[in-house]
């Protein structure tokens, strides 16, 4: 049966890194899904919540829930574990409003991080990609620790032809992004990403692959600042390379 997917591009994937959204849609379509995108969607509100402005975030939560649930697709898929985590927690914010709480619970039951969706729902671990070189995976904190999606991205990466995945020191440590943290405490965030990048350089890789645009934007910015020759890819981009 064809899986009908409502795609949540996330604000970073929509506005700053359209390639992530484009490759996500093409990957899902390639795997036989029927994908739709509702342009009324906005941001998950995490920048507000993480700074403490939870009440202020509620309006955007309603906007996003309405947009993602419109059309009644069985699945909602996003290329970011962090945004998916935020959406899954919406119910907590509407304890005083049974209608919105139900809406939040419904959405929480439908939304998937893209690698988790491909592996767990579609049952696919080999998407037929080919990428020559040596790569490391940065497990983003929210996706790995709080959403609990650890294995699916690794399973997908392991099946990319010609790609050697290597570990690196401090692999599971935060890259220092943390959303507004990166600009509120810039120098500290900078020290954290500098250590991450030093460790990546040490590992001698051609590609750094991750599954959350925020962390990748941070790491990529630091790599470029230091002029290192490491290409940063969102996992959907890696999975769409060198199609056979």
């Amino acid at each position: 049966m064809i899986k009908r997917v409502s795609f949540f591009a996330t604000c970073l994937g929509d506005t700053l890194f359209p390639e992530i959204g484009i490759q996500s849609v093409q990957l899902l379509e390639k795997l036989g899904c029927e994908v739709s995108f509702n342009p009324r969607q906005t941001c998950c509100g995490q920048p507000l919540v993480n700074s403490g402005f939870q009440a202020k975030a509620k309006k955007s939560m309603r906007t996003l829930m309405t947009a993602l649930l419109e059309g009644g697709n069985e699945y909602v898929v996003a290329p970011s574990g962090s945004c998916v985590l935020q959406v899954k927690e919406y119910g907590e914010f509407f304890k005083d409003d049974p209608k919105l709480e139900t809406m939040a619970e419904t959405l929480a039951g439908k939304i998937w991080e893209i690698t988790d969706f491909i592996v767990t729902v579609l049952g696919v671990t080999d998407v037929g990609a080919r990428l020559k070189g040596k790569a490391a995976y940065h497990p983003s904190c929210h996706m790995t620790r709080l959403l609990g999606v650890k294995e699916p991205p690794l399973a997908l990466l392991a099946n990319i032809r010609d790609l050697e995945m290597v570990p690196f020191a401090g692999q599971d440590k935060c890259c220092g992004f943390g959303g507004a943290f990166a600009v509120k405490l810039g120098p500290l965030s900078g020290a954290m990403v500098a250590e991450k990048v030093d460790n990546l350089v040490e590992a001698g890789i051609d590609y750094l692959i991750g599954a959350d645009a925020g962390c990748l934007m941070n790491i990529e910015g630091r790599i470029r600042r230091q002029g290192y020759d490491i290409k940063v890819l969102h996992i959907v981009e890696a999975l769409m390379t060198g199609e056979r």
Partner: protein
Amino acid sequence: MSIKTSDLPLNERLRKELDDKFMRTSIARAQDLLNQKRSDAFAELGNYEQWRENAAAVRSHVLENLDYYLNQFVDKATQNGARVLFARNAQEATDHALAILQKIKAVKAVKSKSMVTEEVGLNEALENAGIEVIETDLGEYILQTDDHDKPSHIVVPALHKNRDRIREVFAKKKGYTGNNVPENITRFVRKQIRQEFLTADVGITGCNFAVAETGTITLVTNEGNGRFVTTTPKTQVVFMGMERIVPTFAELDIIFSMLVRSAVGAKLTSYLSLMTGPKGEKDKDGPEELYIIIVDNGRSQVLESGFRDVLRCIRCGTCMLECPAYRHISGHGYGTLYPGPLGLALVPILAGYEEYKDVIKICSLCSACNDICPVKIPLYQSILEHRRIIAEEKLLLGSVETFIMGLYSQIIGSSSLYNLGAKLVRFNDLLPKLGPLKVWYKERELPEISRERFRDWYRKHESKGK
């Protein structure tokens, strides 16, 4: 000392620590080493998650029934011959201690390591009254000798110093002429401190956990100095945080199994001292008089707040060792006696949001602490909740941040405003790098943004019939 350990504003404090490459190397090495030891110790124990569940359950149960267990403990300890005093705040705690020490005309006190005495500022209070105070924990002794340097970690207070720096401190202050070999430095210190033990009028200790059923005080130490403090002087004063209690020895076993492995990656510390009452008639050593000061100092406030779980803390310091922010700034960067994730979760509610609204920013919300806390304190959630209270209840954030966040909430709350905003963002490279962009750019490049948004591509993609 008190809960506040620095008067520098947040950004200056962080800058100072980030510039200390020496400290950062020491802390990073210590983190990696201790984390590996802890992980090995728990692997050997097995059933890690079940142990965490049990330890968390013990602590939660005690907090829910704290009045009962405190009463039981006080009754038992009193029956054992100890004198128990309650202190509502730091002032009362130090006043109690001063009254006891002045009564026995004490001029010198030896101490074993205790966070709660630092929290209430005991050393300053005693020193102001003309009583000499000697820290006998090696780490604390190093700091005291180094002109009262501040602790950078709650278990390993001199974590920010390595053997070379420690050698320098003793060479300069105590005339040490040896090399930087830890054993030699320790031998030297031991000789110094031993004299102090023998001439002290009073021993002051903390209490890792009290056992309610038996009225027992316990101390977990590695150097044996705690044992000395509790056996040599005639009078012993114990400071105990109000929540540091377990029902019986069965629960103590669970808590210590977690504490020692978490704190130092060992199965057991070299010394585990259990003290039930003062010296009895048949005892060879021990204090003739035993005082126990139970300190509230904000804990009742925490208990009544939504942050009760934070009081589960067993002060192992694991969250600090896992924290990627702590790694670069050590405990000093926080400017609070309790640093790291625990400090963020505990200090604002223990000591007030107004004073500590900034420290809560030192967290990238990576949640590594949540995954390793041996008593499963929801540190990540507590930090987020503090931020909410600061931003939306206490209204303590600056007007600029509040305005920007308000504006952002309007933009993402509306599909059409968001659509417009997303268009404008594409031209960010034309904007001067100010405010947040400037901060970002200082450390790393800004993303290279294409003129086309995902939604623009999708419209074309859709009209092509996919």
